């Protein structure tokens, strides 16, 4: 009992989130049709949670362990806090997006549910990034998924919206089912669901590789679904295209971040054998996890990039782009070193900023033109210079050209890779970058090089949105020129509990 009470202060952010959720639900019920204050309540809740996350930084302990010598259910560490912060900040930005989103405005009567479900996602993700137990992982993943299934179809006004929701739930249900099956096998093999204990067993006991491989593959099916890694990515383009754009942005950033945090923790805690003095990891020899990740990674980025070449819907294009980026991020993990881990974290921060920025612009344009089709972007450069130039910068950053932040993100990944002597992989990844340039630049071509056949009215955006845009724009450029703080931050956050 003491243990529980002692552990409570480790989950302050989650408690805060849960309280915020309750408050939101209650206010929504009280206020009835009046949805004015919901956004403010939401933002306040987010800020409060942010505060608790920042406060929590530097903690490193298990929470909810039955006795202090044992491993707990949750691992509170700066790695988790880093991802929580990333998640909460992207949530904040997405909520700000939602305030102006035309799609969300149309579904105004469900705004309470919308925000509540976002809280559901947040709580799920928080648990996901900090859990040390496979059962908790599964439940958190389901919480995250269930919320996002509904959010993907929240506006309900279009076919594609509902369809996205259905596809998501079926695909997600199967994926998590497969993952659960994998968890059950691992449980059978080791007798525990705690990943730290599993790791201890891996290191000490003689286990059969085949069944471990099987369980790891099945578990990866669930994680791969979340991070949309090939060949578990199929839902991504369809759901991203169908979901409201705010949710698409959110899924592509926060949900993916949580999935990656899970993958990183799973890899570094469960499958590790030892860490060398130079920071590289030795994985257990039961499973060739590294080769597996290399295959997945190359497949993911290649598939994402090449399929994106053909897209004419910007949301769908960004969906494929986010698949490709998942591939790049996996590269950081492939390096199997602390350096690679750091690279992944740096990548994520930058990816979050630039991807959110791109989606934001797409949303703002869609608010006015009602379309995300590339054809409707023709000649937009003339009528909406700020928006299009911003989008251009975000896309260039996504390509990874200096002096934008995207370059730094890629640079660190490649530094890690080459330091691990994986030159051919790095080369393939770089060739992929070249391919990706084509479809990103194609957007620029439509905006700036082509002429519109019809007259388009100038797109004006309000002051608050311009500020938000610039807030996203500044780090996209600045981090490309001066990235010391970011790297320092990531470097200080790579500490996983116990490793």
């Amino acid at each position, binding site marked *: 009992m003491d243990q529980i009470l002692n552990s409570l202060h480790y989950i302050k952010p989650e408690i805060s989130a849960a309280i915020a959720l309750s408050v939101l639900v209650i206010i929504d019920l009280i206020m009835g049709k009046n949805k004015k204050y919901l956004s403010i309540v939401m933002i306040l809740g987010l800020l409060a949670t942010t505060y608790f996350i920042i406060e929590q930084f530097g903690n490193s302990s298990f929470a909810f362990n039955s006795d202090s010598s044992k491993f707990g259910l949750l691992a509170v560490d700066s790695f988790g806090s880093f991802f929580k912060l990333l998640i909460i900040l992207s949530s904040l930005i997405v909520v700000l997006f939602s305030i102006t989103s035309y799609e969300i405005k149309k579904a105004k009567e469900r705004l309470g549910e919308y925000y509540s479900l976002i809280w559901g996602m947040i709580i799920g993700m928080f648990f996901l990034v900090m859990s040390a137990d496979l059962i908790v992982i599964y439940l958190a993943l389901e919480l995250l998924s269930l919320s996002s299934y509904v959010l993907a179809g929240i506006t309900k006004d279009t076919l594609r919206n509902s369809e996205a929701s259905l596809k998501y739930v079926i695909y997600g249900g199967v994926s998590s089912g497969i993952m659960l099956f994998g968890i059950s096998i691992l449980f059978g093999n080791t007798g525990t669901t705690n990943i730290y204990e599993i790791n201890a067993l891996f290191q000490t006991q003689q286990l059969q590789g085949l069944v471990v491989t099987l369980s790891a593959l099945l578990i990866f099916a669930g994680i791969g679904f979340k991070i949309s890694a090939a060949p578990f990515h199929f839902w991504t383009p369809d759901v991203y295209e169908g979901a409201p754009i705010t949710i698409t942005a959110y899924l592509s950033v926060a949900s993916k971040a949580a999935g990656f945090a899970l993958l990183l923790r799973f890899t570094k805690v469960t499958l590790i054998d030892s860490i060398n003095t130079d920071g590289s990891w030795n994985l257990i020899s039961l499973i060739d996890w590294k080769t597996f990740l290399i295959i997945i990674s190359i497949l993911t980025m290649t598939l994402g990039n090449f399929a994106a070449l053909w897209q004419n819907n910007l949301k769908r294009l960004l969906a494929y782009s986010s698949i490709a980026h998942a591939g790049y991020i996996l590269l950081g993990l492939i390096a199997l070193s602390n350096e690679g881990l750091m690279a992944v974290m740096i990548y994520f921060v930058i990816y979050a900023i630039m991807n959110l920025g791109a989606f934001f612009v797409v949303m703002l344009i869609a608010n006015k033109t009602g379309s995300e089709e590339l054809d409707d972007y023709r000649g937009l450069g003339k009528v909406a210079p700020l928006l299009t130039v911003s989008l251009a910068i975000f896309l260039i950053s996504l390509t990874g050209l200096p002096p934008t932040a995207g370059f730094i993100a890629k640079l660190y990944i490649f530094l890690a890779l*080459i330091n691990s002597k994986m*030159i051919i992989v790095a080369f393939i990844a770089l060739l992929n970058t070249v391919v990706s340039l084509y479809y990103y*630049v*194609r957007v620029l071509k439509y905006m700036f090089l082509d002429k519109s056949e019809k007259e388009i009215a100038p797109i004006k955006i309000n002051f608050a949105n311009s500020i938000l845009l610039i807030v996203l724009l500044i780090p996209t450029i600045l981090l490309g020129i001066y990235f010391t703080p970011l790297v320092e931050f990531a470097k200080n956050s*790579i500490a996983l509990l116990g490793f």
Partner: protein
Amino acid sequence: MQNFPILSLLTFLPIVGMIFILSLTKRQEKTIKWITLIVTGVQLLIAIVILFFYNFSMAGINDPSSFQFVEKFRWIEITGLAWVGTIKIDYFLGIDGLSVVLVLLTTIVTFIATFASWNISKSIKGYFALFLLLDTAMLGVFVSLDFFLFYVFWELMLLPMYFLIGVWGGPRREYAAIKFFLYTLLGSVFILLVMIGLYFSATETLANGSKVFSFNILTLMDTANYTTTGILSPFNPNNLRFIAYIALFIGFAIKIPMFPFHTWLPDAHVEAPTAISVILAGVLLKMGTYGILRISYPIFPDITIQLLWYIGLFGMINIIYGALAAMAQKDFKKLIAYSSVSHMGYVLLGMASLTTASLSGAVLQMFNHGTITAMLFIIVGIIYDRAHTRDMDAFGGIANQMPIYTGFVAVAFFAAIGLPGLSGFISEALVFVGAFSSELIRTITIISTLGILLGAGYMLWAFQRIYFGELNSKWKELKDLELREYFMVVPLTLIIILLGVYPSLILQFMTTSVNALVKFMGDAQIIISSIN
């Protein structure tokens, strides 16, 4: 003067101008143009000031203490995790004999390109903002001594170029722009890989005695700085230096452009607006050869020596192939574009023999080709502005209608042919003198002399088709040069003639450095071969 951050000023002045321009409204077209003109003019002045204070006796190349106008301070410093060491990137600018020439060239060409941009009518604000951004990127490449910084500038140039071709170009501009973009990015990908590989292969000793990996180009040149296990370290018996060299070379070769990576060039040139063609041919192509001289050669002297013959061979192919391809063209601009391929071949040929004469010739050829080809593109632009066609067969007898213009054309054409008395001759002759003295590539050099003949062939044929013969009655209305155009052609003509008569004006800046490079290559080669 050596302590004043003049190189930063030179490099980032256009950014200031760009910000100014962006703060103006679209209507203030005149102001925008004048700002650009003033910025590029001031840059030219700064470049001249730099020349004025330049110390001929300081060599540069691999010696940090003999670079001039050096600016060096820590840009990024991240005390790292135990396993990486400190990540350190310097803001490190400086010039030596190789770069000072190209800095001067860049400022001249940009200044003249500003005049060539004067009659741009579509989205002026965007054009000049991008133009100035491009300017910064180009200068940045030539003054950076840190590989990372170099790479940033190198890539920074892509985007403005894409838009400048893509928005303001000819009918197939989109295709040309994307082709340019993809091609060059493909090249930079190779460069990036090698850059990272080098980073992990050499360390720099900090003031406190600790060793850190380094992007510093000069550090990378010194064999003593390499670690024993780095993948590109000569001490590592399984090193990948050979592959890395090829990759790096391809990266730069695409920019030159070297056969068979040249096909982006004709397209880009044909579609680009005049001013951009001028910059593209005048400055951008030099980045490739500059990169090879600044980075590939001194960092990989051992591999360079092994591959000299192939470099020469590709130089020869460029010369002959470019000339023959030029001969078949009907489009005036395409002809000039292919002539660039041919002329850059001389630079490659010059680099293929490590002699003072040929390297001087190669660097001088970079400068001369920059001015000559800039003038050629301006010439094409002038006639295209008037006639709205570049089909050479559609012309004829222009000499009668536009005699003064034709006079300038003749100067440029004969300079391109390599007529003595004009600048092109000196550099080609030096290249041949040097290359011929290298036994390794003597046969190649002899075959390459055919380029002299073919060059005369296609140039004179073009000259005849466009300017000679009876005046085609279609062109009765063409006017001779106007004031703005004099501003473009007269300075270039003067430079071409002046350097043709007295090349030492430029040569004096580079001799020390070129000699140092030759010596360094020899020494480093010996050191490295002693390791293995």
